[in-house]
């Protein structure tokens, strides 16, 4: 075990973490501000990836593809809010889960209808491909490094938005007391659409960024959605700070656990069963982490007492 491998895995964990943050930020905002559980958030991630793959296919430009993913996911999100989600705010969570689950099926089959059942091609642009040498002799893919930087940049931007701008004040006020800010003259339905579209755009961007190094296919959003829910539960529902902390914690735990647990097991088991047992335990690790955190802090790391 070299320290280079450990450092590289920490970078990998960081990269997974910031990707999860992009997903979780929208999810936690929507839940915090509107009290809505949106299972279809993963579909917006998929919409972003497909839009990016389509635009990259037509134009060959990765930058345009990223812009398309933001625009397409934000548009899909706004449309979803206006047509369906709007009717759900006053209903209980079970109705919301049911309706947004239906949206998953509609988005998945709709995407299959438009693009077919086979995965699409979306590649890293040549100016971002290949490894770079970092100080300390680490060879790390440039694209993943870019993802980390973009993710951290967006996290910083979101903090500024929430803490320093008028919209941010309205969002925070909406979390605290919905009726009151409506009474104060804020157009609450416009605010809801805006928050929803913002969350959708971040999910779409995550889908496009990740789609370039993974496969762009129908159903790609759901595994990420599950992780994103774990993230917001750990971080405390409604808290952006919590989403960042939770995302980094889950990213690190998942990556480092997957690498080092099998090696730990190899100390006292034969290699084949160590690999298999270690892998099984590693995939449970984030849920164990979630249970442990909820045991100590039932409303998550940064969750309010509500």
């Amino acid at each position, binding site marked *: 075990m*070299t320290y*280079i*491998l450990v450092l*590289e*895995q920490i970078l*990998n964990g960081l*990269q*997974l973490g910031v990707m999860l943050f992009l997903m979780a930020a929208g999810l936690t905002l929507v839940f915090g501000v509107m009290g809505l559980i949106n299972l279809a958030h993963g579909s917006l991630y998929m919409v972003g990836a497909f839009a990016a793959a389509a635009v990259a296919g037509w134009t060959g430009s990765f930058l345009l593809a990223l812009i398309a993913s933001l625009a397409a996911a934000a548009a899909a999100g706004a449309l979803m809010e206006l047509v369906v989600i709007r009717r759900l705010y006053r209903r209980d969570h079970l109705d919301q889960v049911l309706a947004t689950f239906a949206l998953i099926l509609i988005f*998945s*089959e709709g995407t*299959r209808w438009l693009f077919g*059942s*086979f*995965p*699409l*091609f979306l*590649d*890293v642009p040549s100016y971002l*491909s*290949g*490894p770079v040498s970092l100080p300390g002799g680490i*060879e790390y*893919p440039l*694209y*993943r490094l870019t993802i980390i930087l973009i993710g951290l940049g967006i996290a910083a931007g979101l903090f500024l938005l929430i803490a320093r701008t008028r919209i941010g004040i309205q969002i925070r006020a909406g979390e605290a007391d919905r009726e009151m800010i409506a009474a104060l003259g804020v157009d609450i339905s416009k605010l809801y659409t805006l928050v929803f579209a913002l969350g959708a755009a971040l999910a779409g961007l995550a889908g496009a960024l*990740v789609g*370039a*190094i*993974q*496969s*762009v*296919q*129908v*159903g*790609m959003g759901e*595994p990420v959605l599950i992780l994103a829910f774990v993230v917001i539960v750990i971080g405390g529902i409604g808290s952006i700070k919590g989403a960042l902390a939770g995302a980094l914690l889950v990213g690190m735990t998942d*990556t480092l656990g*997957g*690498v080092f647990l*099998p090696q730990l097991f190899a100390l006292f088991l034969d*290699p*084949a069963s160590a*690999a*298999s047992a*270690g*892998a*099984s335990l590693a*995939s449970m690790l984030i849920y164990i982490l979630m249970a442990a955190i909820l045991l100590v802090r039932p409303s998550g790391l940064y969750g309010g007492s509500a």
Partner: protein
Amino acid sequence: MKTIRMLAMAAAVPALAAAAQADTKIGMITTLSGGGAGLGVDVRDGFMLAIEQDGREGVEVVIEDDQRKPEAAVQIADRMIQSEKGDIMTGIIWSNLAMAVVPAATAQGVFYLSPNAGPSALAGKRCHQNYFNVAWQNDNLHEAAGAYANEAGLKNSFILAPNYPAGQDALTGYKRMYEGELAGEIYTKLGQTDYAAEIAQIRASGADSVYFFLPGGMGISFLKQYAGSGVDLPVVGPAFSFDQGILQAVGDAALGVKNTSQWNKDIDNEANAEFVASFQEKYGRLPSLYASQGFDTANLILSALDKAEPADQDAFRAALKAADFASVRGSFKFGDNHHPIQDIYVREVIKEGDVFTNKIIATGLKDHADAYGGECKM
């Protein structure tokens, strides 16, 4: 849920045998939605192509989508067997779904012909007289890859596969034939899409080659990330990560990779040439190995129906076992545990014009049977 009913209505009716013939009901449970849909779609399209080309009356195919979920597959299977009285079942892609459905189905007297999944348990201790595998036992393609690694002089492989029955069969199969050292052995999560951690381990391991079994989208993700990581060890894999459906999504990253398969579009026989041409004409794309397996499965069923009715179980079973049909693989026969004995080839990924595809460069294993036949007491 999608139900497609296809009644093969042939033209003129030669009155004698056909009038007395009861309808044969074939239930196909396969993955038509979600991430693994490309595989199921190919099996279905290959299967239906053969049924249509045959065009006979009295064969009804009921197709249902399992969404790659074992519980959904079990439910559909129960309905097909108990209320719809299917005679023959087929279609399942994934080994974990096959393990959930096949033993119960065959125990109720249904014939099950697997067009893809071949878990080791069903070839060995839990084999059944009504279960036939028309594709391969899971280990087979990996065994051929192990044999190829020896021939290519690879001495220190790093191997990885997802943690589910077919993944374990894969690494077991590779290790059965491979004679060199192992630089590392990893089980990844099923459906995992990020392989940064595994690639870092490969880089640190000092391996001279990588062997991986990651079917469908998992393989696309791995290859793209591997290409971007700057690790340039030779990669070997089974055909599942290099099939026609996903090569276009992988792109240049797959070019030149050696992979093992029981089928390729350039196997030189009449049935295959006709299959490739007619598939391309009907569906507008090149067939994958999954499509070839679906096509063979349908033709095997039709060849057995020529000789016997499924109701006459012993006669129908003997007719299936005889495998008296023109396989697109050329030579094809069943071993005593009803799994194929066949050649497995080594292919290389090439680019034909704009299309990425495979070409056969060698025969990896000749007349290869699986390793579990001895454990099967039928």
